[in-house]
C-alpha cells in the first residue's frame, strides 16, 4: 500500500514550511509537522522542558538522502539539530530535535 498520499494529506493539513540542511548538502525548504510538547525530566529534580519533534516525508530530502544525526533544521526562526530519528517504514520519519 502506498502511504505517500496519506503523508501528503497530513503535511498539507498540519505541516508548515521549514528549512532543512542535510549534513554536507544544501539547505532545503520542505513542509514538515513540528511539535514541541512539554515534558517533565526526572533526573533527580523534576524539570519541565520542551520536547521538539519534526515529522517529515523522507523523499523530500532528495533521492537516496536519509535524515542524519547532526542535520540542521530551522523552524519558526529557531535553529535546531537532529539528535535522533526513526523511520516509520512508510516513507515518513520522526526526528528528535535539540536547540542548536
Amino acid at each position, binding site marked *: 500500500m502506498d502511504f505517500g498520499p496519506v503523508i501528503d494529506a497530513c503535511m498539507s493539513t498540519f505541516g508548515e514550511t521549514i528549512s532543512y540542511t542535510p549534513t554536507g548538502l544544501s539547505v532545503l525548504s520542505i513542509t514538515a509537522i513540528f511539535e*514541541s510538547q512539554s*515534558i*517533565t*525530566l526526572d*533526573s*533527580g*529534580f*523534576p*524539570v*519541565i*522542558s*520542551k*520536547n*521538539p519533534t519534526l515529522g517529515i516525508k523522507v523523499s523530500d530530502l532528495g533521492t537516496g538522502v536519509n535524515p542524519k544525526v547532526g542535520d540542521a533544521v530551522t523552524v519558526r526562526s529557531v535553529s*535546531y539539530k537532529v*539528535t535522533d530519528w526513526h523511520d516509520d517504514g512508510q516513507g515518513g520519519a520522526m526526528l528528535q*530535535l*535539540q*536547540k542548536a
Partner: protein
Amino acid sequence: MTHGRKTLRDKIVAKLVSASITGSRVYSNRFLALSADDLPAINVTASEETSTLLNLSQKTAKRELTLQVEIVAKENDSGSIDDTLDGLSDSVETAMAADFTFDGTALNCQLTETRLEVSTESETNVGTAKLTYVATYIY
C-alpha cells in the same frame, strides 16, 4: 522550637544564596517541578540522620545529618552540560568549605559523594550534580 536540622538547612541555603551561584534560586526541600527557563537552581534536602545520645537529662544528641545539595542546570552557549555542572559544583564546594560549621551550627561537615546525571530528552541537555554532605551537630 526550631529543630537543629532545619537551622542547619536554612544556614546552608543562606550561604549558597549569598554566594550568588544561582541567584535567589536556592531552595530548601523543594519537590515541585521547575521550568527549564528558571535554571540553574540549587535544592538543599536532608535525607537521613543518625544520632547518639549525649546527655540523658537534657536529651541532647550528637547527630550526623546526610544532606544533598542538588545543582540543576541546562546546557548553554558557554560550554557543555558537563562543563556547566563542574563549574557550578566548584562554586558550591568553595562556598560550603568557607565555613563548615555554618556559623557554629555544626561541628563539622564534609563532602562524601557527588553524583552526576544528564538528560538528553528535551530541547536542551539538562543535568544534575548531587553533592552529598554529612554534617555533624549537637541538638
